[in-house]
């Protein structure tokens, strides 16, 4: 990171916590590291989305693995519940629930749809259930319901049971005794009047059950009774409450019932309905349109990778990528999570400030402004051209990536401690020998693993060391990375991800993790890797900086000269700009263009572009404006007479 900030762990640090906080988050940092992260991320994201091209319809199409109709319903209707904020400690979420088994749920839905629409009639029909639902002892509810359930076994059973319940007699008297024994004690002990009331309620309930059009009356009625009997008390209360509060409006009622049938919950009890997600693939399902949009996304990612209008393309790239993510989360795995984290934070920071086309454009604008202003490249502009200036936003973004990475590792490491396999080493074995992920289909790999497992001490040493190493890295890195051991733990983490990538084939996932680790590297590491050595050729660009066209040409050349190989030489008499290598002959026009592409390091990588018809001529006109065929006199004066160089260094 920037050398301008004090060390986080310097002894005798007397900064206040607020100052330390500000120094951590709001210092400056070289944008080169962030630019490199942008390029690496962009390349990986480009590959990931190129791979989507082969499965665009299968993953995101209307009839894909997760069809559009299902995701539409899920994102609009899926309920989110939360346990009550106040209330008892044992109170969970209270929402009406049915059986998850389709045949049983069908019976319950038939029951619910068969309930009287009118609230008073419904209350009368459900009076018995409402009564026993108030019993504090859940066993009493079950006993009472089973008692009533048995009355439906034969048509005369209901009359017989209710006759005995209300104190009547059957013939012979032994039958009365048998029926009386079946009455729950808490009913038997009630006064006559109350028992008659209960009998009326039971009869009303059975009348309701008789009026409903069941697919199989005996079976389906029993499903309803079974459900009320075995469901937990809170859920039963909620279901009975649901029944009591069903709206009388037919459309509203049907909407609620449909929701319960599909989602097995009451939307009125939900904290939230639906997901706040967006995706272009929710709304575009035509295959041709999808293909065109997909190509557009690929171009966008490429522009982001190259750093073209990065402030806009970074946001668009994230919006585009998250469209794929939200459409079909079932094809995602950890790789997509890391990709999203990187794109999200790169969107916040100005990741195009270095190693980007934006940087080239900025160099051009800075050089042009300086030449327009004073005819020379002034010191601040020179410094700007030498290195991208450190910025607060860059540091802020790198810190976001670092801190988030620490959260990932802490959660991943600590959660593993829940599993016995991560204590006894078998987790490593399960990973290494997983046939779907590893190279197990290759005989050499199978033999190698078998050889390892055949030597018991070696097997245990390897597996236990591997899991200890994993746990050490994942739990230790979030702490050690802020100390002098940063290099060590970053190296170990990189090695771990490389090994996982090779062993399990999750190469893109691990590469993205390694890209995130780049955020921990000091500023100069990346920057110096891109800095060319001293052996680059030096060039001389002669220009009349007072000529606007020539000044623009000079600015353009300086912009492309990322390694500062060119020295500007001001000559008020030159008709057009010229370029020369060292003390060599100055050239202009297409020859000058060729020379630039040959010797300037950035341009030499793009030499193939000169094969594009017209490009060389276009560049010649821009870089060497007002060009006439050079005369002997102008060439000899350019090489011999003393000039006033425009100092750059």
């Amino acid at each position: 990171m920037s050398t301008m900030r004090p060390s986080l762990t310097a002894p005798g640090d007397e900064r206040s916590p607020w100052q330390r906080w500000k120094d951590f988050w709001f210092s400056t940092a070289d944008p080169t590291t962030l630019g490199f992260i942008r390029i690496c991320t962009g390349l990986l994201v480009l590959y990931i989305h190129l791979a989507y091209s082969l499965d665009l319809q299968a993953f995101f199409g209307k009839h894909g693995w997760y069809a559009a109709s299902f995701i539409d319903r899920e994102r609009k209707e899926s309920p989110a519940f939360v346990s009550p904020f106040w209330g008892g400690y044992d109170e969970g979420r209270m929402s009406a629930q049915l059986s998850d088994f389709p045949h049983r749920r069908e019976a319950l839905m038939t029951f619910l749809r068969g309930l009287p629409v009118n609230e008073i009639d419904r209350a009368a029909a459900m009076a018995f259930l409402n009564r026993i639902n108030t019993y504090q002892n859940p066993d009493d509810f079950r006993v009472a319901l089973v008692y009533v359930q048995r009355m439906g076994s034969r048509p005369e059973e209901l009359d017989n049971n209710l006759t005995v319940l209300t104190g009547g007699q059957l013939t012979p008297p032994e039958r009365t005794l048998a029926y009386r024994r079946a009455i729950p004690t808490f009913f038997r002990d009630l006064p006559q009047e109350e028992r008659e009331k209960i009998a009326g309620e039971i009869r009303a309930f059975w009348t309701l059950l008789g009026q409903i059009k069941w697919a199989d009356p005996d079976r389906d009625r029993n499903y309803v009774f079974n459900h009320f009997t075995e469901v937990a008390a809170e859920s039963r209360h909620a279901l009975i409450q649901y029944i009591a509060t069903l709206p009388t409006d037919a459309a509203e009622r049907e909407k609620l019932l449909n929701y319960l049938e599909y989602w097995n919950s009451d939307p009125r009890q939900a904290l939230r309905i639906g997901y706040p997600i967006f995706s272009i693939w929710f709304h575009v399902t035509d295959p041709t349109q999808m293909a065109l949009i997909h190509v557009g996304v690929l171009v966008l990612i490429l522009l982001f990778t190259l750093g073209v209008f990065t402030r806009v393309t970074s946001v668009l790239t994230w919006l585009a990528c998250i469209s794929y993510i939200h459409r079909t989360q079932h094809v995602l795995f950890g790789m997509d999570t890391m990709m999203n984290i990187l794109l999200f934070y790169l969107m916040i920071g100005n990741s195009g400030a270095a190693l980007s086309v934006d940087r080239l454009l900025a160099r051009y604008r800075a050089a042009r402004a300086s030449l327009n202003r004073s005819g020379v490249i002034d010191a601040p502009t020179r410094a700007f051209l030498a290195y991208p200036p450190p910025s607060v936003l860059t540091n802020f973004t790198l810190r976001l990536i670092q801190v988030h990475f620490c959260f990932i590792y802490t959660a991943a490491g600590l959660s593993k401690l829940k599993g016995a396999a991560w204590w006894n080493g078998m987790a490593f074995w399960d990973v290494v020998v997983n046939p779907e992920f590893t190279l197990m289909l290759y005989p050499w790999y199978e033999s190698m693993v078998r050889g390892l497992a055949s030597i018991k001490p070696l097997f245990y040493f390897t597996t236990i060391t591997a899991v200890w190493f994993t746990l050490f890295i994942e739990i230790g890195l979030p702490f050690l990375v802020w100390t002098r051991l940063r290099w060590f733990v970053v190296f170990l983490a990189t090695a771990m991800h490389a090994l996982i990538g090779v062993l399990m084939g999750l190469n893109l996932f691990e590469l993205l993790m390694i890209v995130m680790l780049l955020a921990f590297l000091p500023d100069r590491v990346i920057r110096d890797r891109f800095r060319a050595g001293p052996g680059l050729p030096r060039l001389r660009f002669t220009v009349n900086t007072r000529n606007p066209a020539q000044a623009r040409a000079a600015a353009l050349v300086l912009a492309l000269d990322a390694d500062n190989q060119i020295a500007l030489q001001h000559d008020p008499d030159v008709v057009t700009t010229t370029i020369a290598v060292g003390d060599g002959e100055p050239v202009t026009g297409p020859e000058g263009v060729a020379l630039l592409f040959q010797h300037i390091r950035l341009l030499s990588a793009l030499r193939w572009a000169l094969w594009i018809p017209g490009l060389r001529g276009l560049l010649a006109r821009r870089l060497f404006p007002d060009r006439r065929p050079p005369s002997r006199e102008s060439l000899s004066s350019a090489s011999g007479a003393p000039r006033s160089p425009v100092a750059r260094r």
Partner: protein
Amino acid sequence: MERDAPALAAPRCPADAVPPFALETVRITGFVGVGLTALAAGLSGVATLLPDSVQPAINFARLCLVFIGMITVGAAISMRPGVWWAWALGAAAALLTWPGLPEYWDSFRLLTLVLAGVAGGGVILTSCTPFWRTVLVSALVLFHFTGIFMATTSPPPTPWLTEQVFRHIYNPYLQLVYLRNAYHFYSPEPGPASLLAFFLKTEVGTTATGEPEYKYQWVVLPTRPADLRDPLGLGYYRRLSLTEQLARGSPGLAVPTDQFEKTEMWYRRYNQREVIPFHPADNVNIQYRLPNPDVTRYLLPSYASHVILEHTPDKQTAAKTTVKVYRLEHRTMPPDQFTRRLADGGYQSPYNPVTYRPFFLGEFDVHGTLLNPQEDLLYWLIPILPADPNDKQLNPYKKPYLDYMSVHALELSPNEVLAADEKAGRVFNWSQLK
């Protein structure tokens, strides 16, 4: 027009070397963007007066205007991100985008409200003094990482504090930006991988005796090398993710709910034991895996529908096709089994069919409807058991395993399956899994 502001004074530091964009340029760009989104909003009002036949063209025009307008105003903000009114123009454009979008683009209407909020935040931050900007950004950082922390503690058993704060406050935000992952990778155990085997049965006519005639096809997800479509095999791993979704479930017999159904279901399964035995190596409680409700509610129906549509040439054929879905849980071999020599001197291959545990997940039609929710083996393990490869009469292809999954799918006898040639395509071809 000169886009850069005239820079008459020398810059004080390298960061100032690049002249800022002229405010006039930013203003014009911003207003163009707002104008385009306003035009889209205006078209929405006009669209209601126009006939239905032109609605698609109007909607397309609205989408284009909104898209170009938002990018334009975004470009204006990017030119001078420190100017508060650029963000204000962004907020205005985002709000105008809401009516500008066709109504069925509801998810993007949500996005525009979010963008308007972000732009509003930009107005506040750029209007503040540096001190308050630092304070506000710090507060946002704390808010953000508190949410990340809550997400990591959200898997069960969820602390009450996480449940309340996460569900009430953070879930919508983290869900929108897809940052709700708990990062519990391979936790608590790495777990076995799963494959899916789909058995498609299409009615193609009737036999001479009047019986329906069927065509059969097995489809496996994923397979190598067919699903290794890109150099790094990403398509293969994505398909493995699809299969993992169906692995979410519980040993249903051990879960103390729906006991009445489980009692009936147990007897249905028990009555089939002579035809398809229980697996001798596993406890019966874990041979029944009840999928999570979301799996049965929409994943399985969607997968089934997709497979039928993908493997039938037209709608009529699809309507006559059903699919049985099996999840093949591929257990990893313990080291002692992996290193144990067999009688023939070799070792058991990790791809030996007996290492797979197929669970039957139901038979579906093209609409994703579960045809028989009371099927005897629904959600039960169907065993692949060792067989004698040396019985030439019963086992001409010397298979060392007896594939009850094919017995169940094809409703054949075990001997018929044992004697069948897997390469013919009717019984499941286990060699394709390596």
